[in-house]
């Protein structure tokens, strides 16, 4: 089961004593602020988790995979995520524990 906003709100309700509406609103605002920052060209660094960076890509040649027709892939701005050292180490530890099973 994947983690969703509903479960995050539930956790804030349990651990912080926010009421359910407040908890839901705060989780929503958390992601909206990150989106808003990225939309405004601001890269986001969340220590203990990772960085959301922006990259401007030039136009490049592409192809419609169905028809084989050549269509340029237009220039665009994309988001990339770079996990921090701490998160990478925690995830690798999970891989290690699985190998021992």
């Amino acid at each position: 089961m994947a983690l969703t906003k509903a479960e995050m709100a539930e956790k804030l309700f349990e651990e912080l004593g926010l009421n359910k509406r407040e908890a839901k609103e705060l989780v929503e605002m958390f992601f909206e602020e990150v989106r808003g920052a990225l939309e405004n060209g601001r890269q986001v660094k969340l220590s203990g988790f990772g960085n959301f960076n922006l990259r401007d890509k030039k136009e490049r040649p592409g192809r419609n995979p169905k028809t084989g027709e050549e269509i340029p892939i237009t220039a665009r701005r994309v988001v990339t995520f770079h996990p921090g050292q701490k998160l990478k180490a925690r995830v690798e530890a999970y891989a290690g524990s699985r190998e021992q099973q």
Partner: protein
Amino acid sequence: MTKSELIEILAQRQKHLTYKDVEFAVKTIIEQMAQTLAVGERIEIRGFGSFSLHFRPPRTGRNPKTGESVPLEGKYVPHFKPGKELRERVNSSVDIPITDS
């Protein structure tokens, strides 16, 4: 934007919550996300994106100092796939310069 700037912004927008509450909430959200990936589960946030683990197969590395071959075990690394809304909003702002602040 850093984690502490995110906390500031959310605290200003949620006047009925104390700064401490918002700080605890943001740290709780980030820790829950990191912990989810640390146990090998996915995160799915509609309109933002999804986080999952990708497997990197074992390979032979090299000690850059001695040139000696070193076997490296396979490992899991966190991966982020931006959601449709985030992709579209980020791409709509190619004219805005990218900043770290």
